[in-house]
């Protein structure tokens, strides 16, 4: 089974025939399953050639920070280290070394490399709302909500959501719960 070809998702037969870029569903020639397949030019783009660093030829020629035997072609835009063609990672028009790229990803500085985020706003909201079902838990969870909101307020929410409304709702609910507990304690203390 060639991986370069497109296969029917149902019968896994390789498709070459007349099923591509049709306006409507067309039957798979092998299993007759209705398929709608759109193929784009990237399918036929030849694979790009792997880059190799050029060896240093002359004494005193600038060499790569990571590969001293390879010729430097440009400096890293993050740290300024000289890089060979092999170490030059181009990302959105920027030329970075592997270390800067990695630190940009782990520290969340390069947003387009982020591949996961913890939704602390959802955690705060759940922590504020779910314990209401068993109200006694709120005496513990309300301060926890305050901690989560204060600790993670500056952490950006989801990649597609910029607002912090969940944090705001969570803190309002938590403050109401804490106010309720204070009222209960005062009422019990005063008899």
């Amino acid at each position, binding site marked *: 089974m060639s991986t370069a070809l497109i296969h029917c*998702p149902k019968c896994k037969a390789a498709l070459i025939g007349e099923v591509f870029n049709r306006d409507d569903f067309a039957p798979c020639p092998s299993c007759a399953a209705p*398929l709608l397949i759109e193929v*784009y030019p*990237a399918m036929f783009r030849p694979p790009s050639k792997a880059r190799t660093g050029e060896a240093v030829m002359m004494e005193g020629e600038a060499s790569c920070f990571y590969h001293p035997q390879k010729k430097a072609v440009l400096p890293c835009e993050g740290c300024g280290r000289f890089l060979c063609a092999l170490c030059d990672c181009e990302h959105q028009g920027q030329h970075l070394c*592997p270390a800067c790229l990695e630190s940009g990803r782990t520290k969340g500085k390069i947003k387009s490399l982020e591949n*996961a985020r913890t939704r602390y706003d959802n955690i705060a909201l759940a922590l504020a709302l779910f314990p209401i079902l068993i109200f006694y838990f709120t005496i513990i969870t309300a301060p926890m909500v305050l901690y989560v909101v204060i600790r993670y307020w500056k952490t950006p929410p989801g*990649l597609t959501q910029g607002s912090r409304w969940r944090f705001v709702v969570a803190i309002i609910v938590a403050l109401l719960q804490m106010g309720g507990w204070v009222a209960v304690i005062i009422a019990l203390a005063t008899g």
Partner: protein
Amino acid sequence: MAEKEYLKLTPPRRTAGFAIVSVTRSNLWLGKDHLLGIETEGYTEKYKRFYFRDIQAITLLRTNRAFVLGVVTGGMTALFALLVLAIDDVVGKWVFGILGGICAIPFLGNLIYGPTCKCELRTAVQTENVPSMSRVRRARKVLNRIRPLIAEAQGQLTAEEIPSRFREMIAAPATEPPIMQPPGSAPGVPP
């Protein structure tokens, strides 16, 4: 107001689990030069980016899930409706009426959303299932939306030229596999 970085293409679709608190949901967003697939698992979001320049093919396979769902929920609605008509007890009528109403909601929803499909998105390095494009109507809308963006990034292919391009690709001698540097992963320092 600042322009939104991402536009929602599909609503979240549950892909695993039955719990109310913790489920896996998947949805698709449209970015400036890519599609962003978000998989929400508990309180963590995982991101996958599909750049328009890299998308090789999108495959839709029509499934019979909508039909099965329609038969099951429709059958149960009809059954409860018959029970409401058959019994004389007022409380019983109310109970079966409510149960019938509960079954009618997914039945009607299924009718409104239309036929179902399975969607796969292919790039040079992966074939990714897109669970949120599970309805034909929605999938077509998304395709119509992204088709010009992909064409802008890659150009266009006609239905007639694709089979010949595939035959050419099969006939061409195998090339050396490329070293991939996907934007989502920072490579370590090469040896």
